């Protein structure tokens, strides 16, 4: 079977999954959650006011039609307006995505590359003092609260040394750069512990495989064995681990965004939750679900490229 046919089939398969996800979202937001008119108008609204608002929001229509609205928004990304700011939600998302992505993309790329590089390095020195120290360091770093990194970073590097901005954001390149450096560094530091431990385990699993002994018996050097034989096999689990994190990058990092006052999607989502702005929360849920489903298709497609044992079916 041809790879393109495979991709198309996998994408077609996305449709029922998406319909199911929409159903869950619909049940959660339209059926289980409290009456939105109560939230918007408060306890003392008159019945006719509530009726009017229900009609305006389309809540008087049948559940099936309301479900179709959810489905439609998953395919068109037309989410309607926010209850609290009255803005078009898609515009809010577009505006928030820029600060979020300028933080999360560089942070994610850097942390993935650095973690894999460190893991290859310590796997090379497995069992030695270097390896043990790095593992110890990872565990130590993981057991420190993320707040400690943020507060220390802001106090020491931004306040004491004045190397970076303490908080805030400016749109446009390169204006945003000074604002994201510190949160990016902290993001990388936060990820290093768990990531290095994870990648190291995966690489060590491969290093003790029989094919590595064969490669040595052929006369190959350790570097070729590591970068060609081991890494290509290790890519299979690494791909899943990396790609499945990507959909969540649009959320940015809730904690980092709020501490550094970065006006990203994380902040928008938090505000929406606090003010019961359901359409925005729903839009973010739909967006992440769609991204998650699409990236899992991407994972499957990449598998077929790295692992010949995976059949296209």
């Amino acid at each position, binding site marked *: 079977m041809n790879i393109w046919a495979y991709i198309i089939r996998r994408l077609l398969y996305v449709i029922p999954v998406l319909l199911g996800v929409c159903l869950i979202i619909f049940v959660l937001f339209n059926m289980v959650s409290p009456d939105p008119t109560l939230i918007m108008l408060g306890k003392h609204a008159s019945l006719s006011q509530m009726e009017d608002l229900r009609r305006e929001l389309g809540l008087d229509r049948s559940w099936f039609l309301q479900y179709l609205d959810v489905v439609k928004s998953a395919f068109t990304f037309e989410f309607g307006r926010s209850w609290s700011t009255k803005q078009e939600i898609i515009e809010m998302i577009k505006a928030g995505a820029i600060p979020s992505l300028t933080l999360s993309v560089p942070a994610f790329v850097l942390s993935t590359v650095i973690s894999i590089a460190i893991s290859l390095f310590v796997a090379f020195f497995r*069992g030695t003092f270097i390896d043990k120290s790095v593992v110890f360091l990872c565990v130590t770093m993981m057991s420190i609260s993320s707040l400690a990194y943020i507060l220390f970073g802001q106090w020491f590097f931004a306040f004491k040394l004045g190397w970076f901005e303490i908080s805030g954001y400016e749109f446009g390149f390169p204006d945003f750069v000074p604002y994201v450096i510190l949160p990016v560094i902290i993001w990388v530091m936060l990820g290093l512990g768990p990531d290095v431990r994870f990648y190291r385990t995966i690489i060590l699993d491969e290093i003790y*495989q*029989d*094919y590595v*002994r*064969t*490669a*040595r*018996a*052929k*006369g*190959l*050097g350790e570097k070729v064995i590591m970068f060609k*034989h081991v890494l*290509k*096999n290790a890519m299979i689990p690494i791909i899943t681990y990396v790609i499945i994190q990507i959909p969540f990058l649009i959320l940015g990092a809730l904690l980092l965004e709020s501490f550094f006052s970065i006006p990203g999607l994380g902040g928008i989502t938090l505000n929406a939750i606090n003010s019961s702005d359901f359409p925005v929360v729903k839009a973010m849920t739909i967006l992440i679900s769609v991204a998650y489903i699409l990236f899992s298709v991407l994972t499957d497609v990449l598998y077929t490229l*790295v*692992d*010949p*044992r995976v059949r296209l079916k």
Partner: protein
Amino acid sequence: MAEKILEIKDLCVEFNTDRGVIRAVNGVNLEVYKGKTLGVVGESGSGKSVTALSIMRLIPSPPGKIARGTIDYRGENLLEIPFDEMRRIRGNKIAMIFQEPMTSLNPVFTVGNQIEEVLELHQKELSKEQRRDKAIEMLHLVGIPSPEKRVTEYPHQLSGGMRQRVMIAMSLACEPDILIADEPTTALDVTIQAQILELMNKLQKELGMGIIMITHDLGVVAETCDDVAVMYCGQIVERAEVKELFNHPQHPYTKGLIESIPSFDSTTGERKDRLPTIEGMVPSLFDLPDGCNFQDRCNFATDKCRGSEGEPVLKSIGTHHDAACFHPLS
């Protein structure tokens, strides 16, 4: 007398384990001759693989360490040459195939790729096309049907027997002086096993390499070997030419091994009932007894064997026949 190409002297290999240091190989001496097959037999855990891996300098370290000994290959001690030089010998002059055909090939590269890799490493003068041609030629040589097609396949598309043939093709691609085969047929079923052994015999005649055939099966030894060394608890307990060993075993352990070879009914080809195996268990390397390591399983053991005169050492008993026993059988 054929040319001696490899000589192992007094090889000792130790492993650091949670329970202390064990000596997995203890004072082994072996010789490999051009065009001849040396069999190394013994029960599981007797140190056969560790001996073989030592020759390739592939002992995992830590926990392993070659504590003593020399391995002379054409006038050089392999244990002392620089690592880069050792890498030029591996896969080129001395090649090895392993017991696990299912897992010894890299699953994400084609078999052609994996054969070409060894050529790229050791025969730099070959072009890409020549390497591909040679890979196909090698697959043909080891009896893989339609090698032009197979060369682009991945290991998971081949059966265990076919994968072991690929391993053989890969190991012989550079026409090595010595092929170390560590239980090459143990994981395969009986008919495939016979085919692989026959193939190795045939290739040895064509290419003239010396073979170290490691096995726990004396039946395999009978079919392939010229000389045999019997190992027990990391030591060689008997050494002789193959006919001499089968006809006049001197060590009670060897005799036990020979008696427990399952024989075949010559008319039906069926395996006869299993003959008695040697009773008792191999002693733990953590607490070997004083004297002979085989004493607890031996019907001929005396006080002498139990340590009053130290360990039995390998001594000449007849022409080209050595045994480490205080009371050799004949």
